């Protein structure tokens, strides 16, 4: 059988190496190589999707080779209903980022494209690693290309942003490293599935949970360790922001699903109040903060944090529902809502950062006050921007609605107030999204920069249309996405309500 997951990891990475080999002097060739590699990766997703059996929660497409035998480390890959949607999302964005940077990046094109391809491979690696150390290696290695992307092609304050980004995430993952080493020493294995079965005392679980939380909370990011994200977004080039928002944040959510919940279920149950509280703070508090942003990218960054609050909320209400009703009916809606929210937010935030990129490429400003009346000169752009911002505010018929709807409906079973506070996003999300529309898109032409704007070209239209189809398609028919994960969600829930304490 074809080692599909390895191909999904290594085709983009080797494509990145080939792109680097094209050198600085042949930017056109570098672009075509990278586009080809990204497209091949996307095509490789077809057998992944069609070959995936969604009736079982077992790991599929498994690959297993010894790597560092002295420490029982294996090159162990496999996917289930949680990883496949995220891998598909990653591969979906590969070609889009290449096309989006096609004409915009003038400097060191080959390195830029290579960084993204390598990052893509590493992210697929994160989503498919079943060995704890392998996961950690991918998890950390992924930072390097992103560090370079922000540090080289970023804005004026990029050094501060990169260091903040790197230290924040690195500090978090060091705690995770301690946690997983402890798990290895206890279990005598690096296999994540072995860790799932490992009995642990409450004290052990709490420490491991907090160690993992340090890594994933920074990544997703949760309040109060979120402040690196707006800075990183503001300084990152468009492609960097897209990947950061669309995929990297999801690794935090994925971490909770793959590690925290199944490895330390009792600690998760005991500390769920903390997770829920932080999620609700993210949704409400950050919603207000997003409202007053002056910089478009910062606004979308804060909006991302707020939307990620739904992911953590959806994941951690399961325990309260179980305590209330003695069953998990409703909890599955929350977990699947969290997954849907991750995929959907990938589309929407990616699209929004691309929209800001379109404006930035023309006017070289991200300030809201530098615009006004863009719809007069860029009607097609206005169409897409309004569509994505509406999706961002959770309009039914777009993907943004589905996840929020599921999580709010599920959280009502946990506690009325969870649903009520989370539901405030209906108002807050609309407020900051529509106020942005009012100030940037609508109105009379504000200045000569806006008057001189040209509407989107074919390349930009291609990217935005693709994303629009994804956003609307998933809003109108989320069935396939949701269907993929039922078995895995059922198994996860059955696992987490089972105490590991004795």
């Amino acid at each position, binding site marked *: 059988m074809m080692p599909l997951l390895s191909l999904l990891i290594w085709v983009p990475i080797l494509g990145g190496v080939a792109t680097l080999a094209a050198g600085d002097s042949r930017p056109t060739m570098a672009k075509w190589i990278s586009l080809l590699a990204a497209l091949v990766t996307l095509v490789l997703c077809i057998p992944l999707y069609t070959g995936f059996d969604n009736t079982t929660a077992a790991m599929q497409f498994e690959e297993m080779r010894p790597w560092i035998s002295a420490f029982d480390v294996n090159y162990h890959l496999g996917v289930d209903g949680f990883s496949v949607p995220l891998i598909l999302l990653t591969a979906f964005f590969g070609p889009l980022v290449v096309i989006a940077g096609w004409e915009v990046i003038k400097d060191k094109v080959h390195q830029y494209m290579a960084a993204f391809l390598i990052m893509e491979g590493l992210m697929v690696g994160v989503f498919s690693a079943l060995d704890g150390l392998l996961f950690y290696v991918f998890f950390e290695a992924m930072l390097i290309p992103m560090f370079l992307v922000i540090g080289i092609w970023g804005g004026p304050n990029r050094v501060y942003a990169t260091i*903040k980004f790197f230290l*924040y995430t690195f500090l978090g993952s060091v705690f995770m490293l301690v946690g997983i080493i402890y798990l290895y020493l206890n279990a005598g294995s690096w296999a994540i599935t072995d860790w799932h079965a490992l009995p642990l005392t409450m004290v052990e679980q709490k420490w491991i949970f907090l160690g993992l939380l340090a890594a994933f909370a920074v990544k997703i990011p949760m309040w*109060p360790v979120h*402040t690196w994200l707006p800075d990183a977004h503001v300084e990152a080039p468009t492609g960097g922001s897209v990947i950061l928002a669309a995929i990297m944040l999801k690794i935090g959510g994925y971490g909770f699903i793959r590690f925290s919940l199944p490895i330390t279920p009792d600690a998760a149950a005991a500390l769920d109040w903390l997770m829920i509280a932080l999620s609700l703070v993210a949704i409400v*508090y950050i919603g*207000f*903060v*997003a*409202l*007053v*942003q002056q910089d478009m990218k910062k606004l979308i960054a804060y909006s991302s944090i707020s939307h990620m609050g739904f992911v953590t909320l959806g994941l951690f209400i399961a325990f309260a529902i179980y305590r209330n009703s003695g069953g998990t*009916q*409703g909890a*599955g*809606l929350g977990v*699947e809502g969290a997954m849907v929210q991750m995929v959907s937010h990938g589309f929407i935030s990616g699209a929004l950062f691309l929209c800001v990129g379109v404006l930035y490429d023309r006017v070289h400003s991200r300030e809201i006050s530098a615009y006004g*009346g863009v*719809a*007069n000169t860029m009607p097609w752009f206005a169409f897409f921007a*309004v569509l994505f911002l*509406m999706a961002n505010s959770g*309009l*039914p*018929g777009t993907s943004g*609605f*589905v996840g929020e*709807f*599921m999580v*709010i*409906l599920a*959280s*009502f*079973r946990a506690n*009325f107030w969870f*649903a*009520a506070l989370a*539901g*405030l996003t*209906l*108002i807050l999300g*609309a*407020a900051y999204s*529509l*106020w942005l*529309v*009012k100030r940037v*898109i*609508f*109105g*009379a032409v504000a200045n000569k920069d806006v008057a001189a704007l040209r509407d989107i070209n074919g390349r930009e239209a291609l990217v935005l249309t693709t994303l629009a189809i994804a956003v609307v398609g998933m809003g109108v*028919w*989320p*069935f396939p996405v*949701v*269907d993929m994960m*039922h078995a895995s969600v059922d198994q996860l829930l059955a696992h987490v309500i089972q105490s590991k304490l004795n």
Partner: protein
Amino acid sequence: MDIKTILLLVPLLPLFGAAVSGLLRNQVGRAGAHWVTILAVAGSCLLSFWVLYLQMYEGLETLNYSVYTWMVVEGVTFEVGFLVDHLTSLMMCVVTFVSLMVHIYTIGYMHDDPGYQRFFSYINLFTFAMLMLVMANNFMQLFFGWEAVGLVSYLLIGFWFKKDTAIFANMKAFLVNRVGDFGFLLGIAAVLMTFGSLDYATVFTAAPDAAGETISVIGGMEWGLLTFICVCLFIGAMGKSAQAPLHVWLPDSMEGPTPISALIHAATMVTAGIFMVARMSPLFELSDAALSFVMLIGAFTAFFMGLIGIVQNDIKRVVAYSTLSQLGYMTVALGVSAYSAAIFHLMTHAFFKALLFLGAGSVIIAMHHQQDMRYMGGLRKYMPVTWITAWLGTLALVGFPFFAGFYSKDAIIEVVHLSERFGAGVTYWLVVAGVFVTAMYSFRLLYLTFHGKEKFEVVEGADPHAHLPDGQLAHKPHESPLVVTIPLILLAIPSVVIGWLTIEPVLFGGWLSDAIYVAEGNDVVAALGEHFHGATAMAIHGVQTVPFWLMLAGFAVATLVWRFRPGIAATTKARLPGLYSLLDHKYYFDEFNQKVFANGAVRLGQGLWKKADAGFIDGILVNGSAKLVGRVAALVRRWQTGFLYDYAFSMIIGLIAILGVWVVLR
């Protein structure tokens, strides 16, 4: 054609039209855009009437089926599906007919607008969304339609997106609606938790079993679960159907072009809340408390919003406040369990209010987009069709016997009289007094616009496209073109006769009984029906009732004040400055919302951002720890002098210290 194909085509035709005229706007051109959209909505309208015909004469049963499965989670199926009963088909016909009239009218009204195709695309899209809403067979799709009509309303209020007032109004409309939707969504969440399904039929069947359940919301206070659900759902209706205090967006929505004021903000979208509550009657019937709440909110809106209409000078805003007031009447009817009366008034109102709005639009065309009635007057001789149809619409609105509004409004007043629900007494007085108010502002509008002296002058030779000062016109007002007047006439006909024709089947003949459930003992409509001896008899009897005389009194006062003795209005205004400014400021709702909610939210956001995020987390925790590391490093750096003797000296001290410790500890 298969009935399911027909039902699928009804919403999909306008969606197709919207896509063609919107996405291919340059390819199809102006004529292409209006042809494709008008044909789409005309097809949709014909098919709707065909469905109604099948139900009336061919015995078509209620259809309830799934079109496709949206998603399945934990065995709960979320579907997109249609429930087509008599209520649905009635709504389909009203929506598509008014929409068709408005489409045709738009050819004339938007004739010179550069956004012509975009406008047609939006109103087609609106028709699609509204049809999805009324045809839904589950809460999820209802919510989809609910928000989708909100979206199109947003786009259309801000259609002239260069106008600051328009883009303020559309954002306000969307946000206020979202406040309602917040409640609505919580209601839907409670429905799913209680019944484990969002399908209407399943929920309604199981509803009586949930009657005794309670939910603890605030600190152990137990609410009836169904009361909670109904109140939450009704909060959604308050947003969409503009009931106080969530009514504030509707007057501002008049910033949009007049055709959409007629279609969306009078005839169809704003009645979605009324429709929804009627649809949910099996739930609402189980909660007297929720129904009392509905009734009182409606009564407040019906009377107090009508009062504001008396002091407005903008012709469209008068009609807008009238709409608020009439929506209040419908809400009152819902609150006394007279769901069929609410739907009946919804239908008659759709015709005559669309007529009045389109009439106002016709006047606005003639006046070159002057909307202030203080600069009109005497227009009847210039535009006879508009004038006569406006009179017909007004007579329907004020409830003159035999006109459509008479039957529906009188029925509501009578059922409130018969109701024994908590609060019905005060509600009765408010809706009766509302009749007087309605007559006042309605006839005031007619007099100021069509009668009396001309308060504008024609400036010969002025540039017709220039923006002239108030009260000046470049040329004489003239009657609007046929595309405008024909819809007026076609709407005037039902405004006159629809009540007389349909009161018997809709109210007393049980036409809606397959859709609406009324608990025994609550059925005031049936009680009223015992005294019903035909539409003609009802109209003749109507002359002897209090509302009729109050209406005449309103007419008399309006005639005196605004036709013959204009001084009275000014003196009254000067005598009662407090009352006047209260009404002129619309009870200060806007000021309050702006100060407390809008500014409050921004200030809170600023505080959280600058103080908590940037100040505390970043300033103290993140950069603070970075600085701390820096400072410690600076201190430690002092030891690293680079001189050999310093290091040698430290080594010796260290050695002595270690030896000392070793000696002591040993």
